């Protein structure tokens, strides 16, 4: 197992990248802790797979370095990197039995027979696949095939990290959570560094202790699920995590007050006036809706109500604040009459963004 460092890493699929737009992966510095469980989250096309392929060595980055435990492996070929990868679609060797599939990476590395047998037996047991060993791999179900792909990574004792590229895409929904919890158990047992690519936020948030959010070739935030939820470092994280996404309203700031049009909103911290695109972000969960007029003394801001959606567990109010659309989650007992209301925000959960990046205020 190993710690993985990326140093000023960037990648472009073009031979001579001109501007930033040519980069599939913009310059970044990152550290992946030894034994950490990371989820790499982002929409399709944000560079997740590129990053994964660079770590596994399938791609050579156009610039920068990849270090495994301080050793530069940028130029090392995948087979010598001790990385395992589980792909979106199960990759198994059709003609082989399950046992031969698991033995394959060890045989290629000329591991002595007795050791192969011992490793395969151990991993098959850990995957709950011992009785499947003599079976032809071809006939297995998709989830069993994914377990074999994972097993091929685990049998190698020297595996530095295991990379998962949306491994549950083709798995039946009712088997997904089962496989996910098995994966978590395996992670606890073997303590490998794991990087798990997904575009499904629930999968990322329930599974990883650190979530890396990527957007447009950039890592925009690394943090625990709570941090991503409460303090999105980038407006994109606000949109992408949570449902509905964070409300982002153009504003101006001065001290502890933000102004959206004529409405004033209290902030928990003080901010100096800024140039550029200034926005405030507040999650629908932290927006309180009160009947119109009732909010005057509690700092309520008048809004127009454009609709209320019942999404099952809760209701979402669709509002317009100074013409800007926003959403609020309504408590069970809340009632809205007519098409106007007043909203107030929990100041501790109002974030300020300049050019999409969160800025920290002064106490």
């Amino acid at each position, binding site marked *: 197992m190993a710690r993985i460092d990326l140093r000023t890493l960037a*990648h*472009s*699929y*073009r*031979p001579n990248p001109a501007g930033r737009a040519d980069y*599939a992966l913009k310059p970044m510095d990152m550290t992946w802790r030894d034994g950490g469980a990371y989820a790499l989250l982002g929409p*399709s*096309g944000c560079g997740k*797979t*590129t990053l994964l*392929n660079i770590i596994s*060595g*399938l*791609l*050579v980055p*156009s610039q920068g370095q990849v270090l495994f435990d301080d050793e530069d492996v940028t*130029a090392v*070929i995948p087979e010598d990197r001790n990385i395992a990868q589980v792909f979106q679609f199960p990759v198994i060797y059709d003609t082989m039995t399950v046992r031969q599939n698991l033995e394959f990476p060890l045989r290629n590395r000329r591991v002595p027979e007795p050791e192969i047998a011992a490793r395969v037996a151990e991993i098959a047991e850990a995957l709950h696949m011992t009785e499947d060993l003599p079976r032809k791999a071809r006939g297995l179900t998709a989830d069993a095939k994914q377990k074999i792909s994972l097993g091929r990574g685990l049998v190698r004792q020297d595996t530095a990290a295991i990379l998962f590229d949306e491994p549950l895409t083709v798995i039946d929904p009712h088997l997904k959570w089962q496989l996910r919890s098995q994966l978590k158990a395996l992670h606890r047992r073997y303590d490998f560094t794991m990087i798990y690519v997904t575009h499904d936020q629930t999968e990322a948030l329930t599974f990883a202790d650190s979530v890396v959010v990527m957007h447009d070739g950039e890592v925009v935030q690394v943090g625990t699920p709570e941090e991503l939820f409460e303090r999105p470092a980038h407006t994109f994280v606000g949109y992408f995590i949570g449902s509905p996404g964070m409300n982002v309203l153009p504003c101006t700031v001065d001290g502890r007050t933000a102004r959206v049009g004529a409405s004033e909103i209290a902030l928990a911290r003080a901010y100096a006036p800024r140039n550029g695109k200034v926005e405030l972000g507040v999650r629908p969960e932290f927006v309180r809706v009160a009947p119109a007029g009732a909010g005057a003394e509690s700092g309520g801001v008048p809004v127009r109500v454009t609709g209320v959606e019942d999404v099952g567990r809760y209701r979402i109010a669709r509002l317009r604040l100074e013409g800007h659309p926003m959403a609020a989650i309504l408590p069970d007992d809340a009632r809205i009459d007519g098409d106007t209301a007043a909203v107030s925000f929990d100041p501790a959960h109002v974030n300020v963004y300049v050019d999409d990046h969160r800025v920290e205020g002064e106490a």
Partner: protein
Amino acid sequence: MQQSATTMREGAAVPQRAATGGTAGAVRRRTRGGGVPVKPLILTLYLVFLLLPIYWLVSMSLKTNEEILSTFALWPQDLTFANYAEILSDPAWYMGYVNSTIYVVLNTVISVSVALPAAYAFSRYRFLGDKHLFFWLLTNRMAPPAVFALPFFQLYSSIGLFDTHIAVALAHCLFNVPLAVWILEGFMSGVPREIDETAYIDGYSFPRFFTRIFMPLIAPGIGVAAFFCFMFSWVELLLARTLTSVDAKPIAATMTRTVSASGLDWGVLAAAGALTIVPGALVIYFVRNYIAKGFALGRV
């Protein structure tokens, strides 16, 4: 070989998303052992092997008969188009091309149009004897034309179709219809059945659905099937020659008969041969993007 071992799927290293970005520079190469480019070498040798005889034919068609017989040169010393001029000015020659084209096109149209509904039936429904019927159709692809030559001759003579284009076109259906059904069935099975159901719910009648919605969906399949029908009808000679004498005589037969008659006019023979390659080359050029796919989608 080691070198090619790891570079063989360079494209593999590039995620699908990057397909437009090109692969240059993105890919590692392991540089163990020498750097002999084995693959391009093999491919080049193979292509040279394929093209050399064709080149020789073309080069010969541009020589005079005297030059062909007297001197031996890798390219025409005394370039002449007289051989081509002779073919293009003599109806006995050029009508051969016209005749071939007529029956090939007829055959392609007939084969594809009868195969379309049949392939649809095989890909969508089960019915009494469907498997046996499918297999029986395919066995016709295994029928040696030599076996059928004489019976065909008698059959078409007895119904007065001997020496007509339609006779050859129908005869070629023997092997082209099964092939077209087979290829189209493969393509149609790849189209989800929900599309049919949705269309029927939307009130489409079967013919309207089939021509307006379904056929555009399998257009590449129709193209591939037509290509193969064209190809096998264009290259066949035994049946085409047996079923014709004058009015519908194919170019291929014109060539064989002229060889035996005039014997030694190599230049004209080569020019006629070179001209038979042209339609095929044109057709390949138009379907080049579908050739490889077409082969993969049939069902066995």
